[in-house]
């Protein structure tokens, strides 16, 4: 399906034609869940009638009567509304244009207690392909939107909130691109290539007012988190970073979602049966599943296995976009911070090499005299990793981007996890 650089317009047309041929050939076939074939669509698909890129150069001003696919594929428009992704262009939190599907994650990247609204738009006739441990393989033309809103009170995520920004991930011909939009007014969001710094943002969390400077990321920041980098294999290795989505992995999608019409259903099954996902194993027990974690989870109530899985899920989605290496990535690729030796992927067994999770590992770059190792099992107070999650000092703060306040519940989870890890050589002697 990958088309050549010089004649992509034609090959997209060919592709579309090809898809419709297949549509004829496979018309009436059932669920796509065990279908290994090419693009298939039917009237009941979630993206039926959504349209898709035509291969033509788009126009930000065009009224596409729905998603403005050609503009998404070829233009960086000034206004979010130019892309026609939402029925109400002033509300990116609900009612996507035809083809948009809401989703959420079992455990999410912490972003200063904001509420996030996610939608995926897959062109009509196309499907994502299941992958066991990496982000699903989304077809060209796929658009993912994520809107961040700061609630007045984190206990009541009922719409009493300030919509701040909407980030787009677009799968264009030469790879994914990210474009940030900032809601400067209630009317529309505008392109924010250089980000935005918003002082004096306030939310009430557990009865305490948190006031902080919220950072809308720069476009280049998007790449910082979303890129994997080559582990260069010699002086002539000139491979480049690869841009990838982070959240939509099977393990985070493998949970129930309450859809706008009230339906509650497992998201992966919903996508498969809605013909926007293929290759999902018939046996859902074989699909990775990160435990649910949110502000109401009580770490102390988890048994050791649940705690390990929950902590790993949290570390994965908050850290492992950078702190990862190899495993299920393309050969000799890693996250930008994989080289630190701290590698926190959910699909990396802790027991295989606890030092990858920081156990008894001296910080290579940086460090702090008060903490003897990244993770000191059974002594969270001596663990640099927990300190880095719990400080706002730029020199030490982790994650580097997107966090101005401490995620108290996340820190509590990791504190509990460290204190209940199996004893290691650096653990305090009883």
């Amino acid at each position, binding site marked *: 399906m990958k088309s050549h650089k010089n004649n992509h317009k034609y090959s997209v047309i060919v592709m579309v034609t090809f898809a419709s041929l297949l549509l004829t050939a496979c018309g009436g076939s059932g669920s796509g869940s065990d279908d290994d074939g090419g693009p298939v669509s039917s009237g009941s698909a979630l993206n039926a009638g959504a349209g898709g890129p035509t291969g033509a150069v788009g126009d930000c001003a065009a009224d596409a009567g729905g998603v403005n696919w050609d503009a998404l594929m070829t233009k960086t428009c000034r206004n979010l509304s130019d892309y026609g992704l939402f029925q109400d262009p002033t509300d990116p939190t609900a009612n996507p244009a035809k083809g948009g599907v809401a989703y959420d994650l079992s455990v999410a990247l912490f972003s200063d207690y904001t509420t996030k609204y996610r939608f995926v738009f897959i062109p009509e006739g196309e499907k994502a392909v299941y992958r066991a441990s990496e982000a699903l393989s989304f077809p060209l033309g796929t658009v993912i939107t994520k809107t961040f809103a700061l609630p007045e009170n984190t206990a009541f995520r009922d719409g009493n909130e300030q919509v701040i920004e909407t980030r787009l991930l677009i799968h264009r011909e030469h790879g994914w691109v990210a474009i940030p939009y900032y809601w400067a007014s209630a009317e529309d969001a505008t392109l924010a290539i250089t980000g935005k710094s918003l002082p004096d943002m306030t939310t009430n969390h557990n009865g305490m007012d948190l006031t902080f400077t919220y950072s809308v990321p720069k476009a*280049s920041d998007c790449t*910082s988190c979303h*890129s994997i980098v080559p582990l260069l294999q010699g002086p002539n290795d000139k491979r480049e970073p690869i841009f990838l989505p982070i959240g939509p992995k099977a393990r985070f999608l493998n949970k129930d979602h309450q859809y706008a019409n009230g339906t509650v259903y497992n998201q992966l099954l919903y996508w498969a049966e809605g013909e926007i996902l293929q290759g999902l194993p018939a046996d859902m027990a074989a699909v990775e599943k990160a435990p649910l974690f949110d502000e109401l989870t009580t770490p102390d109530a988890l048994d050791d296995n649940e705690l390990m899985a929950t902590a790993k899920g949290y570390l994965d989605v908050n850290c492992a976009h950078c702190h990862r290496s190899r495993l299920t990535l393309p050969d000799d690729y890693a996250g930008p911070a994989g*080289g630190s030796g701290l590698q926190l992927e959910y699909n990396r067994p802790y027991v295989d090499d606890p030092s990858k999770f920081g156990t*008894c590992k001296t910080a290579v*770059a940086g460090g702090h005299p008060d903490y003897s190792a990244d993770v000191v099992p059974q002594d969270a107070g001596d663990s640099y990793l927990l300190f880095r999650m719990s400080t706002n000092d730029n020199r030490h703060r982790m994650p580097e981007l997107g966090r101005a306040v401490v995620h108290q519940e996340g820190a509590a989870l990791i504190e509990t996890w460290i204190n209940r890890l199996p004893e290691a050589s650096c653990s305090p002697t009883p």
Partner: protein
Amino acid sequence: MVRESSWRRWPAVIAVSVGILISGCGEDGDDGARGPAGTAALEQSVTTTSGFAIPGDAVFVAPDAVSGDDITEEMLLALFDVPDDSVVVLPKGRFTVSETITVNSANGLTLTGYGINETLLDFSTADGDDAIRFEGGIDVTIRDLGVYEAKKNGIKTVSANGVHMAYTATVWEGELESDNGAYGLYPLQSQNILVENNYAYGSADAGIYVGQSNNIVVRNNIAKNNVAGIEIENSTMADVYNNLVVGNTGGILAFDLPGLEQAYGGNVRIFNNDVYANNAENVGSGAVGIIPPGTGVLVFAASDVEVYNNDITENETTAISIASYFLSDNDVANYPANYGASMNQGWSPLVKNIYLHDNVISRNGGDPRGALITDIVAGYTSAGNASGMPQTMPAILYGGIGELLSNLDQLSGFNALVGADAANDGVDYDAYDAGDQICANSNINGNPAPDYANVNTGLVYGTTMATASFDGDGNPVPSLLIDQMVNNTYLNCVQNRLPPAVVNFKNNLYGCAGDDLAEPACSL
């Protein structure tokens, strides 16, 4: 690229094309919204203070900015999705930059100011960590500017092939303090790295640090008042020469640390450097926190290192210190548990094939100290050493415990941990053979009389049954051997010379086998 004949006519053209590009950013940019920012102005000069000729088609960032202005937004716009082979020029003056500047996958980019003292970027109020960070990229140049008060690292590259840092300063002003950021110039996991004519001052970690990289030349730099002056870590094919390294806690370091993606380094040559008075107290943390203040050159758990023809002067603990990882972690029994995966990849706590020769060693050891070596210092400076009388701290100090344990066949169990690739590369835990040894000869005693006798070689542990000491249980204990450095008996051997590093940058070769063929240091 340089069109000298007609540069004066360029600015107007640039202004027009930049204007088009700016509107393109919002309305009809293609993938990624290219949008070089700023407008061009007639400049008084088109060469930087180092002589770099700025081409007429360069992108001039905020050319009208005056000192004190915040140029963050202009920098971000100019460097976002920057076209191949761009020259991006930062203005003259001292400017505020309030966020991390990240540059992704730049190809052929030159980021330049007007000079190391002309274009200063002040990150002291930044809400970010690193000052400038390059992710990916091919043949990237950073030159003629200064980065001040970075919150974390100064200039970092990760996974770049072709990095040229020149006439660039990374500075934390004032006293050396623990919150002075992290690394200054910081190529990581990169290839073909040329770091030359830079000034690295005041880092709480290493002023110049090259990590997990290959094919590296670090020359003609000044590293001053950092915890570590220049550090080469888990890197191969590195030449460090003609640098002035002064006032740091430790001057020049070759480290191999466990747990990293590139498990080990090698073929590091440190030569013809001035390593002077590196006596700053250690305010660092993490790996560099172990460096004893007053250390000239430190080889730590690294192998295949040649240190020669350096002037190593007035470092108050030792001129050259060589230690296995057992110095910082002597829990040998737990190495498989703690470092097994790294050892599988070839990391080793041992030091092997270290060759020290023709260094001029003068007036070192005047005030030896360091938390990690308190007992060693106490032994040498009291009667508690092999000579039975107080001594000046050895100018060349070798730990020896790793070699002794190897020679006693107490580490051969680790051989089973070594993966096939590493084993094929020669990693083992057998008794040291001739090629593994630590050798020091032809070093020159630069002390004046009457202190001439005070330039010594010391071995903390004897490395053979004849020289080692044992307690009643048969466990090795420090011998604290000492001998004169000139014609010493303990490290009296010769190793093969190491081949030079070669940097290929934009298809030109740099280093002793490249542009420096005629450089005197390269024929030493």
